[in-house]
């Protein structure tokens, strides 16, 4: 059990990620910025690009809004169990742990003669979120003895996760001098999904009224469910006998063999004037329809446990008494049955929204005035504000970013960000993108202030990729 707890704590404290890519948003030198805003600006001289397969984008992002690895495993005189207990009580049931990982398999794009920039590709994504189940953690850690009359909220169980492949294709066009629009269609191929997000009910131990036993252990208004797809068949030993079978199954599902869904991204960039521009995008407006390999579990009902009442029936020699314990078990499973269901369900993708406003300035290397609408300048700079939100099961998460971007040379750009979000208020990030001939490379990481000791970070994000770009 403690190993399970250890893994949970480690996952919660070390590998928690969100999906905000504030360092890439709006950086037009990076082709993958179109995945964050399909209506983003594409350099006019960019004719064609393709990502180095499997290396065009690796994104890892993890975050914990309530606790860090250092809070638990930091060297100190305080016993680790005391630290865990303190963390359990310090955290709220709205604190969360998230993990997001994306690996781009293919990415490509080209400009047509009619100045559309089409782009498409395939990427794999893992996205998980677990809200801290505070009441259940207290019950597991402390037991119920010191919590008479306290209603442990079963609704604290709130978690979901997706492992999927996304096939996408989008179009981008500067429709006027000022406005660029874009849209992207997506097909989702789910490998594995689970969600348990709309739970309710409570467990309470209270003093009895004297008519039965000392306590009443009450499960009230219980409605707890877990929906899964891609899980049931993994337990079927006829179909899966080893890790190679599991990998084979996942690969089959990854390439349109899994549960499918559709979605779309839309975005726009508007040049307000010579210096100001605004942009916005909505990503992953879509859903996956889980119809295959679905297995759902649902427990509902009310039950009050008073212990076992003995009746002392008069028995003849060899006659058995009542099967009290079996009757008790039957009564519980009757009152709070756990049903296994195989009905299809729909899982909405976590909708993401980006918005930004940017002030462009700077001058050409030769010292001439900057033509800020001409993105070919060598010393373009900009300052701006970006907002990000992602819809999660309990409530949306928000982030606000201030950034400074500078085109350092005609082949190197950098962006530095300050982000405030649910994880921390002092997240400094840095991204660098270089165009070395046709070879495009970018590297971006945030929470740099924590790089001296990652254990103290509430969240970390890393993006890395390599592309080939052809210009006119």
């Amino acid at each position, binding site marked *: 059990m403690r190993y399970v*707890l250890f893994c949970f704590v480690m996952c919660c404290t070390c590998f928690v990620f969100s999906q905000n890519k504030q360092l890439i948003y709006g950086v037009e030198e990076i082709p993958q910025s179109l995945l964050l805003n399909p209506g983003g600006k594409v350099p006019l001289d960019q004719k064609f690009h393709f990502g180095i397969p499997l290396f065009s984008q690796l994104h890892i992002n993890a975050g914990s809004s309530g606790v860090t690895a250092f809070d638990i495993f*930091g060297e100190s005189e305080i016993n680790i169990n005391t630290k865990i207990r303190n963390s359990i009580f310090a955290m709220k049931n709205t604190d969360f742990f998230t993990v997001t990982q994306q690996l781009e398999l293919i990415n490509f794009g080209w400009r047509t003669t009619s100045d559309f920039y089409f782009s498409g590709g395939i990427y794999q994504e893992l996205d998980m979120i677990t809200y801290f189940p505070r009441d259940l953690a207290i019950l597991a850690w402390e037991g119920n003895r010191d919590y008479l009359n306290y209603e442990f909220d079963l609704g604290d169980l709130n978690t979901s996760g997706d492992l999927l492949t996304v096939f996408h294709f989008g179009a981008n066009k500067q429709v006027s001098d000022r406005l660029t629009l874009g849209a992207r269609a997506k097909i989702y191929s789910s490998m594995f999904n689970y969600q348990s997000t709309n739970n309710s009910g409570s467990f309470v131990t209270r003093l009895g009224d004297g008519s*039965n036993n000392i306590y009443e252990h009450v499960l009230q208004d219980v409605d707890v469910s877990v929906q899964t797809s891609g899980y049931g068949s993994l337990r079927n030993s006829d179909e899966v006998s080893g890790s190679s079978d599991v990998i084979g199954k996942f690969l089959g599902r990854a390439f349109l063999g899994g549960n499918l869904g559709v979605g779309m991204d839309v975005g726009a960039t508007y040049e307000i004037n010579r210096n100001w521009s605004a942009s916005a995008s909505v990503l992953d407006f879509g859903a996956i329809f889980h119809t295959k390999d679905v297995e759902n579990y649902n427990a509902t009902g009310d039950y009050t446990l008073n212990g076992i009442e003995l009746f*002392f029936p008069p028995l003849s020699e060899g006659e058995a008494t009542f099967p009290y314990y079996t009757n008790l078990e039957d009564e519980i499973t009757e009152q709070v049955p756990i049903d296994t269901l195989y009905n299809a369900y729909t899982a909405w993708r976590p909708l993401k929204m980006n918005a930004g406003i940017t002030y462009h300035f700077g001058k050409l290397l030769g010292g001439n005035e900057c033509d800020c609408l001409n993105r070919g300048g060598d010393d373009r700079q900009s300052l701006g504000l970006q907002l990000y939100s992602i819809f999660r099961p309990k409530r949306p998460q928000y982030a606000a970013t201030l950034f400074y971007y500078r085109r350092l040379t005609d082949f190197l750009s950098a962006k530095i960000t300050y982000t405030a979000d649910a994880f921390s208020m002092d997240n400094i990030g840095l991204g660098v993108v270089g165009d070395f001939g046709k070879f495009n490379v970018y590297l971006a990481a945030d929470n740099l202030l924590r790089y001296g000791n990652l254990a103290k970070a509430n969240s970390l994000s890393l993006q890395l990729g390599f592309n080939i770009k052809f210009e006119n």
Partner: protein
Amino acid sequence: MYKYALLFLLLSLAVSSCIKDTDFDQADEIELSPVVELDFLFFTLEIDDFQENPGFEGSLTVVDTTEIRFLDGSFAQENLLSAEYFFKVSNSFPIGVDANFNFLTEENEPFYEIDFLIAPGTNNNATLTEFIQTITAEEIEQLTQTNKVVVTFTLKTLDENLSGVLNLQSKTTYFLRF
């Protein structure tokens, strides 16, 4: 030149990032030690419930048995550190009652026993008896070999017209560690 410095800085950060001042070996010390209280048995007895039974000459007795299946399960055997049984008995019989809880294995072998006397009622009023049996860490191995309990209550009389009511309520406190 500064652009190379910037790139160098970023790569340095990525390479030099570390986790320090932490000791993940502390994970070996993680222990959950919840204290769980759970209702145990309850019942009400009147004189009609008692009868003469072989082996209890000169007394009226009631006997019943119930399984407590989780006691000899692997979870209890591995994680139960100690336990405490609490009995609260209200008795208006004018004589004392002997309470006996005999915990048996699957093969009906007795491994643990709780025995206590219940005070007699006075002037038709019920007397309250409370009894706590602590099962220490040394004794817990015996309890977790069992999966049923035989409950025997004995009135030291053969008077079947004795009036009174005996009500028992009980709970168990499980001290777990895992």
